[in-house]
């Protein structure tokens, strides 16, 4: 395992009190809600960013907001770091613990509390999975829009922590644009309610600040989210191209022409092969690049939009166009796309990048990405949200080979720097986590970061909340 990203030095005072802490926590939680034996802790040592691992001190699985508050109050009193965890699907290591930390897992808080269709809002506990919200209101013709590819498993609490996006965010926005309120437990156990079912709230936009704060400002235990009426119809269409450059140029022209489909997803040849192997969705295998373009609305609207898109695609040498013919086919097309990362496991270990670049830079960055990865003697598969320039190069490597792993990490860092230099950013939807923490100074100045850390300290003055993440360990304010 490459040791290039350091965890915060564990507090010896906390480690020394381990047994006492476990005993105290057991008093605060119902039976079966505390894990403290070494065996049981190991499975919590990482999330979906498996390159880094650290077994925590204990794992608390509270069932109520009051229990979350009690655990936080206790931890803050003794300066014990806390790492919140939803479903542990973070690709940036957002839920990776540290040796002196208590993990607070929200997986037992998975009830939908209120569905209010007249106000198009739902109140759910933080451990409810993203897809469960849409499923709960689907029979009534509604859905919850942000759809990270891990939506089957990831929780709304985790989505809020990372301000998650997804394929359909091109039209509907990301989590922060679809979040109306949260119940938040602060570091000292104080419980506050931010926002509600109204479209805006008084005072500073603390809700906007909390969304995407990676569990460093507090722990969300409930969320009020916006529901949207499902469009009359939706149709994904596959466009195959003889080169990635042409596909990229097609995306830029579609957006530039004023057409905004619900989603434009890009896959290169290796990614197509990976996804097809799992989903058997009927992706064309003889093309170099594939776009999944989804249009929605009435039949007339879909037809009109498609006609324009097909015309543009024609100018960029499209070689295959295939419209989904049924709901089942459409579902398969999306299943393949959304399983892309996991399906990569069939052929190799991977790390997944998440930089976003301006659309005009897409073709250039794609090309350079290929060169960078090849330069390290590795392979890459590209599958990403092209419409908003959010790239996901998957760098394939062998995690059992430390040198390979180090090369993959170095290649990833080069790609992220490339994204920033192209006018973009380190992360579009996965979060900084631990993965991109040490690159933050490539995007921000120390003064910028100081300001962010100062605001962070307004919420968590002693840095106990997920402290190893987001901000480089050096340059932090003295505790």
């Amino acid at each position, binding site marked *: 395992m490459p040791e290039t990203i350091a965890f915060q030095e564990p507090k010896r005072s906390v480690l020394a009190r381990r047994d006492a802490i476990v005993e105290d926590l057991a008093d605060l939680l119902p039976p079966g809600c505390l894990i403290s034996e070494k065996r049981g802790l190991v499975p919590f040592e990482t999330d979906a960013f498996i390159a880094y691992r650290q077994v925590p001190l204990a794992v608390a699985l509270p069932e109520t907001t009051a229990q979350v508050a009690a655990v936080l109050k206790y931890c803050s009193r003794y300066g014990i770091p806390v790492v919140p965890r939803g479903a542990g699907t973070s690709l940036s290591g957002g839920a990776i613990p540290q040796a002196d930390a208590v993990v607070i897992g929200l997986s037992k808080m998975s009830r939908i509390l209120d569905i209010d269709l007249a106000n198009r809002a739902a109140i759910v506990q933080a451990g409810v999975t993203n897809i469960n919200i849409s499923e709960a209101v689907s029979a009534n013709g509604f859905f919850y829009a942000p759809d990270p590819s891990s939506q089957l498993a990831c929780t709304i609490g985790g989505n809020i922590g990372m301000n998650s996006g997804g394929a359909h965010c091109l039209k509907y926005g990301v989590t922060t644009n679809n979040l109306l309120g949260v119940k938040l437990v602060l570091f000292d156990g104080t419980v506050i309610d931010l926002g509600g079912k109204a479209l805006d709230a008084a005072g500073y936009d603390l809700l906007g600040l909390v969304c995407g704060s990676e569990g460093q400002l507090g722990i969300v235990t409930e969320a009020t989210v916006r529901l949207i009426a499902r469009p009359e119809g939706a149709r994904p269409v596959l466009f195959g191209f003889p080169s990635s450059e042409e596909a990229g140029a097609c995306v830029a022209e579609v957006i530039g022409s004023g057409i905004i489909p619900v989603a434009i997803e890009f896959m290169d040849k290796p990614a197509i092969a990976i996804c097809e192997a799992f989903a058997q969705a009927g992706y064309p295998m003889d093309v170099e690049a594939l776009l999944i373009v989804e249009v929605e609305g*009435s039949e007339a609207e879909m037809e009109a939009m498609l006609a324009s898109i097909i015309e543009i695609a024609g100018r960029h040498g499209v070689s295959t166009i295939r419209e989904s013919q049924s709901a089942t086919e459409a579902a398969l097309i999306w299943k393949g796309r959304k399983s892309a990362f996991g399906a990569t496991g069939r052929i190799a270990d991977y790390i997944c990048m998440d930089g976003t670049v301006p659309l005009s830079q897409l073709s250039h960055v794609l090309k350079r990405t290929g060169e960078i990865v090849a330069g390290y003697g590795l392979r890459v598969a590209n599958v990403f949200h092209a419409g908003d320039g959010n790239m996901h190069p998957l760098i394939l490597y062998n995690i059992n080979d430390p040198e390979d792993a180090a090369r993959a990490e170095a290649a990833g860092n080069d790609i992220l720097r490339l994204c920033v230099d192209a006018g973009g950013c380190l992360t579009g939807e996965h979060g900084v986590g631990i993965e991109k923490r040490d690159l933050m100074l490539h995007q921000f100045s120390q003064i910028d970061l100081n300001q962010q850390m100062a605001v962070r300290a307004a919420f968590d003055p002693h840095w106990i909340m997920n402290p190893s993440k987001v901000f480089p360990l050096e340059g932090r304010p003295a505790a």
Partner: protein
Amino acid sequence: MSSPFEPETEAEIADIVRAAAEAGTALAIMGGATRSGFGNRVAAQQPLTTRNLSGITSYNPAEMTMSAKAGTPMAEIEAALLENRQMLAFEPIDHRGIMGTSGEPTIGGVFAANVSGPRRLTAGAARDHLLGIRFVNGMGEVIRSGGRVMKNVTGLDLVKLLCGSHGTLGILTEVTFKVLPLPPASATVVVFGFDDAQAAGAMAHALALPVEVSGAAHLTESVRYRFIGSSHPEGAATVLRLEGLAASVSVRAEKLRSAFSAVAPVALLDRKATETLWRDIRDVKPYADGTQKPLWRVSVTPTMGHQLVAALRLAAGVDAFYDWQGGLVWLRMEADAEGDMLRRYIKGLGGGHATLIRASDAVRAATPAFEPEAPGIASLSARIKEKLDPKGIFNPGKMG
């Protein structure tokens, strides 16, 4: 009041702020001052305007983003967008009418006050379109947050924090925001004669249909003539806007019309009438009346709006109409502001907040403009303010 600072560069602003922080001089921050009546009275003698910090710094229509210095006039931005058939989807309000101000609203002012119009219901607020900012904090440091791409979760989202902070946390110097294509067609379905409660139900129904309503307002009987004149059937008008491709708008309009035509008279407004109507709703035209009658902007759960108004009507002279499916209530009080009663009723109905947008100086002095925050949140807000503006020199008192 001293003569205002009118810096022309970000560096100048930083210098001024550093000096002010050192001297403990409080600054009244403004753009075009068309909204400077917002909030509580600012305890500062020294104005600072960003209006000379002006100009679009980058605009790439194909990427749907624009960057502009904070003092850029809205008129300049809107003209540039129109040339490329694009728009600010959140429809920022022009407050000059209701505030009785003149001058040029600026893009910095729009984001500092998080000003959003009717399309906020479906397209999001100003804060949802703001991608990146540069600002000067209370120590005179220049801070960047966000960026110029659509998706960006790198670091703490100070963009959201600054948006709507009314110049109390920092001085915006440059903003980068999302722009969207202008819909090629639009229409409005008008349903006549619903009372407020029926209208709330009708708007909820319309938004549950797969027709993508992009604006839902209820123009009560007392104000509807200011919006759509008298050539239509009588009574209040519930208006539902549709936008998109021409073929699609007409199909959806027909669907929407048939959803209501059995129970009430329905009319259809064409594109031109639609544009005028929604601009007037956006700018709260009926209450742009040249008076100082207290004007409230109330944000509540959409189905609660009409209950609140019904309760108020029993106790005070009040005129009202609704936007955002009933969740945004524009309330004009005939005499007293009745802030305590209003806020008590809002609380009783399950929450929301009321902002006093306009009132006489005497009323403003006696009524907190913004909803008082719950204690836990208020202390958090104070700590945040302290982290950005430790000397308390930016718009002191404005937000309470």
